């Protein structure tokens, strides 16, 4: 059997499935190949969605503890407790609904789903192996969206039980009393923030001199403070020497310390490796960069082989769901012969869903300093915003960095429970090349938490109003 498609997409993560839908909507005959039983990739199955569900439960627990202070009395609610099996059940239901939703969208958009492991066997040719059977499909274009997996370290053996990555952790049926999080990046901090609030004693061990090393130093410092209040010990500039499972415990030896620290569980969270193995890249001669990601031309997302494109976590751009899906829609436009203005990655927002959240866009202050750029910076605290106090989310600040010459917004860093929602305003603004005046002169509704954006804009222009 060999059906000729206009486009074959390998991988059904947010990059792959959104690209497939869009291509079909543009009139292409599209196939989507997925090796796992459910669609949706890392994001829907073991990434963004379950993680955010788990964090929401932690937030609800925090809120429940405060009901009395809001003037709400619920019988027997003086001492709210976490029902961990229910946390997992709710999460699984959400994941199931969303992954089924992707299957439904595929049908609705007439994308053919092919189950099995896809690999490129030539130009315009993809083999799919399922239950040991191989079928070859031909097509005009291939979109590689095979995503990424949790990175392992050679000296640490992940056993899937007491030593896990973000892929196995979902199987935990109880909250461990103690856990170590190796790697204080985005994913590590999210798990630490959730489990810390569930009641675990968490130790974050980060090699760099701050957690979330790609974030602004001030937001990282603020998050560190917050995590400490959530049962988390934060160690930075510390390397792990060895991790050994011993019975029900795990011994972790840190560099500079001889006696091991003992934890019930360990989460290894040291970044994500691109899925580039066994998918036929070498057969057609697709080039990887020196870090093992697929090299693409960022003006087309085409690899060095014409007709073969790659997007999402397999290419060396930010490993975020929304980044991958934007790249996929872009690549499909190029395949359809449309002209596109290159994606400006400085308008690509990032968010961390800890408590409080961190969201950012553009440059950090240290990056600007290092580049010797002229900039102005201002920080406006949420404590000055009435609605933030009403909602009891007055933690954090908005920090804006601008180029004083024309008022171009170079970077924004928000620490607050609503940060991920608020950063979208800057994503739009930066995409339209707004100036700081545009932001300050935009009327924001009162009272809202997002009023702070206007306030911070006034602050960076030198005249904060409500402070």
């Amino acid at each position, binding site marked *: 059997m060999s059906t000729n498609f206009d486009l074959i997409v390998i991988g059904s993560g947010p990059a792959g499935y959104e690209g497939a839908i869009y291509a079909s909507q543009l009139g292409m005959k599209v196939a989507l190949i997925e090796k796992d039983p459910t669609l949706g990739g890392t994001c829907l199955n073991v990434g963004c969605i379950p993680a955010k569900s788990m964090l929401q439960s932690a937030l609800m627990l925090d809120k429940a503890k405060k009901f009395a202070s809001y003037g709400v009395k619920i019988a027997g609610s003086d001492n709210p407790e976490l029902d961990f099996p229910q946390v997992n059940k709710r999460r699984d239901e959400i994941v199931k609904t969303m992954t089924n939703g992707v299957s439904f969208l595929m049908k609705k958009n007439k994308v053919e789903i092919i189950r099995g492991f896809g690999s490129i066997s030539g130009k315009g040719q993809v083999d799919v192996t399922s239950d040991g059977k191989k079928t070859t499909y031909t097509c005009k274009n291939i979109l590689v969206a095979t995503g990424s997996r949790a990175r392992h370290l050679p000296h640490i053996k992940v056993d899937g039980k007491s030593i896990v990555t973000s892929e196995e952790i979902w199987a935990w049926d109880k909250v461990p009393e103690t856990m170590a999080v190796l790697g204080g990046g985005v994913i590590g901090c999210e798990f630490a923030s959730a489990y810390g609030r569930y009641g675990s004693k968490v130790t974050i061990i980060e090699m760099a001199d701050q957690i979330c090393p790609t974030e602004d130093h001030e937001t990282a410092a603020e998050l560190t403070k917050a995590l400490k209040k959530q049962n988390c010990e934060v160690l930075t500039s510390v390397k792990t020497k060895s991790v050994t499972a011993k019975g029900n415990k795990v011994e972790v030896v840190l560099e500079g310390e001889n006696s091991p620290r003992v934890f019930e569980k360990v989460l290894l969270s040291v970044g994500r490796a691109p899925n580039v193995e066994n998918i036929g890249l070498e057969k057609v001669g697709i080039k990887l960069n020196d870090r093992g990601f697929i090299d693409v*031309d960022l*003006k*087309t997302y085409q690899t*060095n082989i014409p007709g073969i494109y790659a997007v999402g976590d397999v290419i060396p751009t930010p490993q975020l769901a929304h980044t991958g899906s934007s790249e996929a829609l872009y690549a499909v436009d*190029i395949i359809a*012969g449309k*002209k*596109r*203005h*290159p994606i400006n990655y400085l308008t690509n927002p990032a968010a961390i869903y800890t408590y409080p959240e961190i969201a950012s866009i553009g440059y950090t202050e240290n990056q600007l*300093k290092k*580049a*010797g*750029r*002229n900039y102005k910076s201002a920080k406006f605290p949420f404590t000055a915003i009435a609605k933030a106090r009403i909602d009891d989310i007055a933690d954090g600040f908005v920090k804006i960095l601008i180029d004083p010459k*024309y*008022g*171009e917004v170079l970077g924004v860093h928000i620490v607050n429970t609503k940060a991920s929602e608020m950063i979208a305003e800057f994503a739009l603004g930066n995409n*339209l*090349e*707004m*100036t700081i*005046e*545009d932001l300050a002169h935009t009327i924001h509704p009162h009272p809202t938490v997002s009023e702070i954006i206007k306030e911070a804009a006034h602050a960076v222009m030198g005249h904060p109003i409500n402070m």
Partner: protein
Amino acid sequence: MATQNVLMPQMGESIQEGTLTRWHKKLGDKVQREEILFEISTDKVDTEIPSPVSGVLVQIFAKEGETVSVNTVVAVIDDAAAPGSVAQAPAEKPAAPAPASVSAEVASASSSSDSSSRVLASPLARKMAEEHSVDLSKVQGSGEGNKIVKNDVLAALETGKSVSPLVASAAAAVVSPAAKSSSEHMKATGGGAEGIVDGVRVSRVPMTGMRKKIADHMVMSKRTSPHVTSVIEIDLQKIVDVRAKFKDKFEAVHGFKLTFMPFFLHAVIEAIKAVPVVNASIDGDAILYKKDINLGCAVALDWGLIVPVIKNSSERSFVGLGRELNNLAEKARNKKLAPEDVRGGTFSISNYGGFGTVIGQPIINQPQVAIFGIGAMQKKPVVINDAIAIRTMCYCVLSFDHRVIDGSDSGKFLSTVKSVLENWNVPVV
């Protein structure tokens, strides 16, 4: 096929972008490694860029006159392609025809000079255009839906093509009411480069990219650092005598002329060692003391000013300093400076004395914190031991950033220079 991207090089650390002024090769041309591929202009330097590899120029992303950020891909060279073959580049810069509705809008806008607001442009692009009197209706947009974005205005500023004299004088009218009628007059006289502004006959010539960048850099520096300039008078008679005595031998042995500059370079290095804060920069609330002394020496050119840098100056001998300065000046005049040659300066020297200027107040080359200036050498009657003698004298100055350097530091610096020059004891040949 093996392709190699050609990047806009980094020419000096504070430089974010450069203007591609001329392509020496066309699409499809064969090019040899090290052969000149294009010329660029930045605020520090105009230079020719050699090709990184041999092959065929298969893609060009930056047009002549376009300003692009450092490390942007400006072209692609294929080392296996046959000459004349050109890659299909689906996403080449949209020189493509605009959608009908937009081009109609642009066309109607260009018919009147004050209609920039009807052109599709980003707020940032609009603001930049307003400040620099760029007529947006004459700018080609490269953004989504052919919107004019920041880079398009920067490119227009570079070429100067879209800077409309009419719009410019209309802007001036806001400041001076009298100017309104003169802009009318200018329209009457043809609106070209010749005109009358405020009753004065003028000819308007757009600044070159280099001049504009020098201007920006100077204004930025004056805004950044509170400048103070101290002056000292130095007796150069001993130096004049030493040079006269050795100059023929020096040229015979070393193959280049012995000028006064190496004497000053040596004295300045000694003074920097005595007062290290002049060889520093400010980083937030900290002072970065530079361990290397990299002296930038301003070289005047017919078409502007360049500041090549003598790396590791303090580790060079007297002859080594002279030779490196000679090399760099030569390269600057031949537009052969490499990115490395203008990068990493930690302290600068300006020698305006060559034109007879006695005292100057040079502007600090950011992010440095001080600059040394050398005035003209003059024979003067001076009092030595209560007797009048004729000596060769010179005023030297230090402009310094008063945020980190105090008058006492500058005094110590200048007196060290003076003492080294007046008591010269370094062998020169």
